[in-house]
């Protein structure tokens, strides 16, 4: 009688770990094969969910000219390298690596596969076959900050962050500056939970922020956990990455939706046409990459009007929240009155503005 040994289990485990890829890896001659590396599960209803929508948009737009495959739950460590290489070996000619933490891994694998085009999301290192692309989420944060600044009774706002990377720092600063335009005394309490996706921790951190006096909490992590806590407490918050109102019909004031589809389709088309070149793309409201979800009925008309003004200002280029004077946390002037921070400076920002309360 066959006995199962430890080795069999290790083997079975290893096989199980690669199953998600085998499931979608099909052979197709002549089709452009496009791979995606996803940070979280596609069902996170936030960041990865939005990227997966972008992937589906490629399928819908380019039909049988392309074939898309993806690997989800890829950690931002050395193992990402293997996951990216697997996509190359599976025949992908265009690969989207959809999180900041895949930066060096993407460049390393790109060096090994010069005929494969890579697109790294939110990063800043490029190569001949590596483009970077990002979305100006902070433009959306300016809308949220405006709403929060006008609607908060305590003037103490909570910001549930993930890691201190430029994208999050920009979000925090944009949110705080926008709130302070409406309520100069507004402060933002910041908690970084060292994870993009940890619902129990997101929930407990939201509890803690509320406990310290925050009556509106915005999230820069990927699950609707914070919104559910706010819903239970009768407070307000915002969705991240996607419209999360289903999870918190009362608490969800609005959300920043990430719309990646148009960009993904254009890049896939460029590869099909042979016109793909390495580039750095940073789109926002204007290009339709950042979209604000419908406002909750709880948002008063005057607040909604102000929020619309910010959106309109970004669309016609007349508004930029990173216009001086801007002071840092210690009160040093970082941007002089009337000056506007350049995109290049924003992309590497590592300091918080005045009124942001953060600990290590």
């Amino acid at each position, binding site marked *: 009688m066959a006995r*199962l040994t*430890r080795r069999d289990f290790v083997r079975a485990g290893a096989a199980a770990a690669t199953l998600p890829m085998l499931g979608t890896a099909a052979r197709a001659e002549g089709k452009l094969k496009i791979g995606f590396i996803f940070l979280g599960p596609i069902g996170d209803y936030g960041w990865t969910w939005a990227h997966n929508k972008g992937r589906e948009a490629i399928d819908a737009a380019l039909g049988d000219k392309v074939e898309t495959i993806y690997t989800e739950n890829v950690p931002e460590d050395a193992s990402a390298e293997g996951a990216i290489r697997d996509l190359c070996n599976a025949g992908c000619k265009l690969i989207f690596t959809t999180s900041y933490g895949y930066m060096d891994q993407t460049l390393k694998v790109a060096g090994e596969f010069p005929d494969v085009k890579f697109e790294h999301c939110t990063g800043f290192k490029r190569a001949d076959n590596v483009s970077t692309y990002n979305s100006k989420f902070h433009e959306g944060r300016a809308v949220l900050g405006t709403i929060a600044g006008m609607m908060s009774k305590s003037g103490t706002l*909570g910001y549930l962050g993930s890691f201190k990377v430029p994208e999050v720092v920009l979000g925090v600063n944009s949110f705080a500056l926008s709130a302070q335009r409406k309520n100069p005394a507004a402060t933002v309490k910041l908690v970084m939970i060292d994870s993009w996706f940890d619902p129990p921790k997101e929930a407990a951190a939201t509890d803690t922020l*509320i406990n310290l006096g925050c009556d509106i909490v915005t999230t820069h992590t990927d699950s609707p956990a914070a919104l559910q806590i706010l819903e239970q407490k009768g407070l307000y918050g915002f969705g991240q990455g996607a419209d999360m109102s289903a999870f918190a019909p009362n608490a969800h004031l609005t959300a920043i939706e990430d719309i990646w589809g148009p960009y993904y389709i254009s890049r896939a088309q460029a590869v099909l046409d042979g016109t793909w070149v390495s580039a750095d793309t940073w789109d926002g409201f204007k290009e339709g990459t950042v979209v604000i979800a419908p406002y909750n009925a709880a948002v008063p008309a005057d607040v909604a009007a102000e929020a619309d003004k910010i959106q309109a200002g970004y669309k016609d280029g007349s508004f930029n929240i990173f216009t001086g004077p801007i002071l840092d946390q210690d009160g040093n002037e970082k941007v002089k009155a009337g000056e506007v921070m350049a995109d290049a400076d924003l992309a590497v920002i590592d300091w918080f503005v005045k009124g942001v309360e953060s600990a290590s």
Partner: protein
Amino acid sequence: MGFDVIASFMTIVGLSTPILLAGLGEMITEKSGVLNLGVEGMMLLGAIGGFAAGVLTHNPWLAVVCAAAAGAMGGLLFGVFTLSLNSNQTATGLALTIFGTGLSSLLGLSFTGMIVMPFGSVFPVALARHPILQIIFGYSPIVYFALIMVPLVAWFLRSTRAGLILRAVGENDRSAHSLGYNVILVRYSAIAFGGAMAGIAGAYFSLVITPMWAERMTAGRGWIALALVVFAGWKAGRLLVGAYLFGVLMWLELFAKAGGFGDVLPVAQIIPSQFWAAMPFIMTVVVLAIISSRDKGGDNAPACLGKPFLPTG
């Protein structure tokens, strides 16, 4: 600016309850001599099982029962391999975690984006929502269940015949076998209990803290529960203390990050929050070191822990 002690305590209860539940279950499993590293997988099975039942039946109580059943099923599957087929417990437990993660994600696909009816309060709303008394009456029924299980498990192990048999099986399976006890059956029962408790712990996430389904939503709490059992030295009372200690540390990390010490205790604000985050694991290692350095007698670990039972003759 102050902070609300009652609200903080209630956050800590929320952090402690799932690891207490899963820890109690795993402790019983380990007391029978079986090391099941699949706690995380069973929690996720319970989380999706309970959530699915909650969506379909709109009955949170039934949902918890289904969560327990889903966790127990995961445990029994582990039992089939380790007890009936004598596979390696460590590897099988890890496989169960991978399996539970994958299966829960698959089953959860059709439940993503839904919400469930939350539990009503077991106590009158006047008590459950009272600004001060809510510290006693304001929790989900699962919290009270977890607290009641602590003395029950302790009493079961210490004072009942069944508990004695369970311990005998864990300490010396051959002797228990030669005395006529059914070692395999006892271990199956212990594993099923452990699975059911892990399942309820999972349901605490998907039904109580954040009433939704998200893949991998337990985010590693099963591993903390495993550490907790060792930290507690396989004793129910210490497990309770340990669960709340771990809960306090998890809360301290967030509290420190939010600048909560700011005005209350500025000195503590200097301690990096990573220190608090690492503490449960550091403390577990320290306790392990203390246990293993002590003389015989202080060691409470079941002697047969992790060893397969092969009846001979």
